[in-house]
């Protein structure tokens, strides 16, 4: 009985996680510019990864394996937003701007910036 419940929970987590992973990947492939592709990468890094890890944790129960899965989840939870922010910051400094930008306030304030 409890095994069946855990299997159902795992199936739900895997299905949702796989859905978010594929949606994020399609978004990364099809969205028009770098700043909108960041959204796809964000979905993969947070919703997709954490849900797949949750589904694996349901299958192993309260063991050392789950502790490792929780550690991986924590690291991904903290490092992937940091990494995405670093990429976005570097792209902004390098002069990439979103499509259809009307007014670029930070560049307006710096004199001589494009």
């Amino acid at each position, binding site marked *: 009985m409890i095994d069946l419940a855990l299997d159902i929970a795992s199936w739900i987590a895997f299905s949702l996680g796989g859905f978010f*992973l594929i949606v994020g990947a399609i978004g990364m492939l099809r969205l028009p510019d*770098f700043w909108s592709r960041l959204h796809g990468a964000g979905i993969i890094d947070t919703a997709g990864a954490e849900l797949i890890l949750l589904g694996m944790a349901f299958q192993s129960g309260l063991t050392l394996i789950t502790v490792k899965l929780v550690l991986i989840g924590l690291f991904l939870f903290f490092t992937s937003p940091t990494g995405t922010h*670093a990429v976005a910051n570097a792209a902004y400094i390098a002069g990439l701007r979103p499509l259809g930008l009307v007014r670029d306030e930070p560049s307006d304030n710096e004199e001589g910036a494009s």
Partner: protein
Amino acid sequence: MFIAATLAVAVTMALILIRGFMGPTLYDRVLAVNAFGTVTVLMLGLIGYLTERPDFLDIALLYALINFVGTIAILKFFRYRDLGHHRQEESK
């Protein structure tokens, strides 16, 4: 169950790889490599379950750490063209 999840992860990896090769700017490629590393961590964990060898999770943990450090190192290198850069040297 794990096979289905592994298939979803494999499709995701293929799509991200296409973006990594296509990516018009450097930052698209870095973003794709970063996301690819995250998905690789999931793939390693799932392979550990498929082969019933949970030792793979240690590798996945290590890969998660190296992936983050690698992304930051690539970005720092392309900004300063040097990994040992200090702020004080620039202001001299």
